[in-house]
């Protein structure tokens, strides 16, 4: 049973389809692991054990009867607690929505259930997704399984998704990413997560942080696992007018292991130059590994990203306060202090500043497009530092002192701004034994190439196979 929880999504789906293991057996194995470890990890807000076992029995009945099976039949799934789930509370990690029970699933949840996935529960998160550390004062801070002392943050805001996948409490989870909230916990917890192109996956039925920056995507232990899940959840949705009508390719089929001749742009100023030496060394080593696989690596400079922090603040603070305005007038005392303070800031952003931020955004998008016109993917660290300690507010990168929150989102946010697909995957460990992540950024709607490069790297390395001490 112990080995089953470390089995990949791809293998679990195959083993279930060929009746090598039963969906009930698989679901029980993960639920037992949640019961054993989540008291420490605090990755779940709500465990839906009974309904998961009911779904597993139904999947087993489908298998026995030879009825049509989805590509994820019987595969357990965790959901960041901002994806609406019919009949199961969706808290957004908040006290305000503690008893909010949606009547319908989010579109992506409905699609994954239709593909056969079994929802094991709702995962912890930074309250209302407004923070990159993954802190939650209402349900407890999720703990990074890579730190046996339990003092490190998971990164956020999809903190429970990062911790649960890293510790094999679920084989795959959904996260959302407004400034890096899939990729940051993926990097800090040593797993793989992809933020697809803006418009690739529906946000309908997902609590927003900032509508124009929010993305949803899978977090798993490999690019191959992300590929199979992304294919099942992506695609046009009339309920989300920003989704694209472009067809969703078979991402799994794109994973050929072959990247000979692919052009990789290593983002040097701002990204590599703004990271801790051990992070830079790990990503540099990954670039050499990609060269060893036949890719052609050159260095790229993106000048437009320097004002992204200010511009992103103007957009996210304005959009977030617009969504929360009524609660901020009537229930502001029910927010955790850091989130309440960030929301208040939105009141001081002017309309002119919001539009200027959107001008910056247009420039960033154009420059990233231009860099990708001559390259297949861009490569950069995901975060400039490994997981900080809970409560740590400042850090030092090189000679510069910086606040932890700004540092965590500095390298991921430009691609929420631009909307390009970006996948974080492990590429090393720090001197303290903490995971280091790198991100691969692709052309709009070319998640296939991003996943292909990530998968080729993972076929050649074993960083993604390492298990954390708390697991």
């Amino acid at each position: 049973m112990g080995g089953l929880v470390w089995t990949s999504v791809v293998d679990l789906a195959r083993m279930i389809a060929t009746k090598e293991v039963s969906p009930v057996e698989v679901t029980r194995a993960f639920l037992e692991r949640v019961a054993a470890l989540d008291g420490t990890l605090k990755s779940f807000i709500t465990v839906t054990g009974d309904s998961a076992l009911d779904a597993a029995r139904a999947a087993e009945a489908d298998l026995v009867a030879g009825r049509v099976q989805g590509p994820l039949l019987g595969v357990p799934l965790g959901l960041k607690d901002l994806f609406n789930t019919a009949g199961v509370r969706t808290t957004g990690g908040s006290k305000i929505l503690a008893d909010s029970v949606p009547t319908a699933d989010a579109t992506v949840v409905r699609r994954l259930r239709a593909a056969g996935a079994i929802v094991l529960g709702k995962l912890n998160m930074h309250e209302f997704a407004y923070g990159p550390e993954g802190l939650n004062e209402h349900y407890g801070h999720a703990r990074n399984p890579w730190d046996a002392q339990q003092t490190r943050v998971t990164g956020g805001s999809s903190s429970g998704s990062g911790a649960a996948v890293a510790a094999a409490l679920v084989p795959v989870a959904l996260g959302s990413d407004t400034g890096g909230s899939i990729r940051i916990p993926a990097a800090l917890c040593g797993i793989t997560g992809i933020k697809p192109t803006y418009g690739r996956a529906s946000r309908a039925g997902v609590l927003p942080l900032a509508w124009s920056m929010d993305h949803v995507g899978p977090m798993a232990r490999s690019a191959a696992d992300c590929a199979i899940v992304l294919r099942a959840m992506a695609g046009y949705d009339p309920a989300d007018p920003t989704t694209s009508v472009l067809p969703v390719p078979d991402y799994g089929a794109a994973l050929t292991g072959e990247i000979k001749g692919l052009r990789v742009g290593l983002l040097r100023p701002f990204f590599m130059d703004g990271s801790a030496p051990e992070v830079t060394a790990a990503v540099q080593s990954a670039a050499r590994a990609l060269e060893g696989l036949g890719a052609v690596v050159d260095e790229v400079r993106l000048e437009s990203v320097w004002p992204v922090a200010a511009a992103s603040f103007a957009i996210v603070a304005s959009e977030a306060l617009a969504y929360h305005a009524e609660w901020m007038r009537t229930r502001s005392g029910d927010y955790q202090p850091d989130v309440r303070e960030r929301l208040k800031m939105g009141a001081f952003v002017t309309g002119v500043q919001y539009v200027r931020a959107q001008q910056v955004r247009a420039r960033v998008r154009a420059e990233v497009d231009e860099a990708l016109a001559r390259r297949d993917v861009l490569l950069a660290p995901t975060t400039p530092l490994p997981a900080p300690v809970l409560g740590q507010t400042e850090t030092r990168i090189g000679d510069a002192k910086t606040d932890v929150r700004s540092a965590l989102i500095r390298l991921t946010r430009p691609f929420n701004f631009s909307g390009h697909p970006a996948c974080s995957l492990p590429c090393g460990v720090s001197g303290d034994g903490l995971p280091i992540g790198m991100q691969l950024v692709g052309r709009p709607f070319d998640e296939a190439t991003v996943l292909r490069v990530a998968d080729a790297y993972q076929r050649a390395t074993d960083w993604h196979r390492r298990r954390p001490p708390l697991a």
Partner: protein
Amino acid sequence: MRSAMRLAGFAWSDAELDALRPGLERALASLDELERLPLGDTEPTTQYRIF
């Protein structure tokens, strides 16, 4: 701060505004930088749907 807060439709206390001041001053400084950027006639991103 008070005027901006009222314009936005909120009524936070003086103590709440004082607590906000250090973070807000940093944020306003960064917004000033945004205002000084030579963005010319760059068309702002107002249409999010790429395809």
